């Protein structure tokens, strides 16, 4: 047995794993009857279908040839996720201005051609624009500066 279509193989596994996880959780909810369905009925129904489709993908990956997995370059994804999380942390402790600065300056490194000076300038411009647009014009409830600052 040789995996001939790695993308089918892995996506099949992912679909089966997620379906099984949902079904395992749904099994704890009341199933009900076909006439009076409980909260567990529909999730298990869909879970079975999804697991079945995942199994087809998995089986197919040993029979049909498919394209190989592309090489993953992790840095862009990792930096993006970290930047968004930093935005969340900064927003809850330091306000919008710091959050945008963190997001832009860290996030810019997701692209190798970024330059620090440029991203600082971009962050400043985006802070100004966002505060003007979302806080002044649209009046959204966003705290711009930390409490101790003002």
């Amino acid at each position, binding site marked *: 047995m040789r995996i001939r279509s790695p993308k089918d193989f892995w996506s099949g596994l992912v679909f089966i794993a997620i379906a099984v996880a949902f079904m395992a959780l749904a099994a704890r909810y009341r199933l009900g009857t076909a006439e009076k369905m409980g909260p567990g009925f529909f999730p298990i129904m869909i879970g079975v279908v999804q697991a079945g489709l995942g199994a087809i*993908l998995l089986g197919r990956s040993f029979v049909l040839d498919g394209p190989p997995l592309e090489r993953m370059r992790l840095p862009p994804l990792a930096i993006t996720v970290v930047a968004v999380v930093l935005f969340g942390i900064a927003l809850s402790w330091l306000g919008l201005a710091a959050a945008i600065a963190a997001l832009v300056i860290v996030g810019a490194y997701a692209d190798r051609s970024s330059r620090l000076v440029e991203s600082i300038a971009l962050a400043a411009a985006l802070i100004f624009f966002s505060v003007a647009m979302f806080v002044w014009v649209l009046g959204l409830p966003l705290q711009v500066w930390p409490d101790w600052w003002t």
Partner: protein
Amino acid sequence: MELLSNLGLGLSVALGWQNLIYCFIGCFLGTLVGVLPGIGPVATVAMLLPFTFGLGPTPALIMLAGIYYGAQYGGSTTAILVNIPGESSSVVTTLDGHQMARQGRAGPALGIAAIGSFAAGCIATVVIALFAPPLAELALKFSPAEYFSLMVFGLVAAIVLARGSLIKALAMVCLGLLLGMIGTDVNSGAIRFAFGQPELADGLGFVAIAMAFFGMADVVMNLEQPEQSGVYTSHIGSVLPTLDDLKTSFWSIVRGTALGSILGILPGGGALLASFAAYMFEKKVARHPRRFGEGDIRGVAAPESANNAGAQTSFIPMLTLGIPSNPTMALMIGAMMIQGIAPGPQVMTDRPELFWGLIASMWLGNLMLLVLNLPLVGLWVRLLKVPYRLLFPSIFVFCCIGVYTVDTKIFDVYELAALTAVGYLLIKLDCEPAPLILGFVLGPLMEENLRRAMMIAQGDASVFFSRPISAGFLIAAVILLAAIAAPTLRAKREEVLQE
């Protein structure tokens, strides 16, 4: 004459100063994201959605609609001048449009694209006004069984839209349905799949999903690849096509509009499918098909008319049945639900000002787009020179602020981060996100209608086949599945046999 009075009502709504302004903002932003490659209408609608909550439902929908059809105009500009499709629906426009530009005829190519789009937009508006009311009337008679079957059909049909594997697309629909079940179950009040997190009791935010899959994950995919650099055509010249150009492309525009209007109405249709089909069709009926690909103006006129017509008529199933035919429509349905409007056939009777106002605004929007695109084309071209490394952090900022302001919950920002990683992995495995978002939006409705239908039928599942309309939808879904599966099966089998 009811039609005229309805359109009159619509115009009076759409001409209100507030709606006019939001229509303009929508068209303007639509053109902007249409011109810029690397950001599409789905991500833009998702990013702007939270900022429309403060508006009434009518201006909100008018603006979001403007983004979608405006993007169809803008996409052609990039396709013609830079040979990079600004939108996926303008891929075929690059074939002849850019050739025309290289022959020094960029102006007429842009002109005919805008004129064709305008004509198509006007006709499609009338098509919506004519076809939506009878369809809504029919849908009002649907029972839960019919609705459930309709949604099954809608989801299956939407898979046509997904590139690649049918099985993966179906599995993505299921995944969307499952993700849609996270949160409180409306029937029993039970909280499902929330891991005891109170933040998850309201379910995953669909704004977060749409932004993560169509905005953030897309950016990450773009960053992995070296930046595309196109051949810029600086000389545009007069954008007015000659009389001869107009004569050659007249019937192409008519055919493109007709084809686009029909394909837009079908679930799974929309701008993308329409533009491809129109180009193929035009090549088939042309007397000298060999000139296609070498700068034939008909190869610009037909797909550009079709994608605009398709973008607009895809509102018909959304407005009359509450069924999204593509991800943008799924977002529109979400926007309506957040505004407290249950999408479905009752929208037209309960909120005529919303329905007809939206339709009338499309016509006005097309007029604005003509002005935005023809004289201002030089401005849009300059925008293309903004490097991606300045653009993508801005996308990050809008996504993060947008997702936070939906409910002012920090948790949603972390949700966005996690979903970005999930979306990226799925796209890497060739699983298109479009079916997932459709399943996610339809999931709760589907479950509710299934439960209700089964309760009315006292647990007898044959109800879905004994009611003729419901049976018709299910049979259509099966036929469609077989039709899509067959050629791929055959192709795959041939591949295997060749070894």
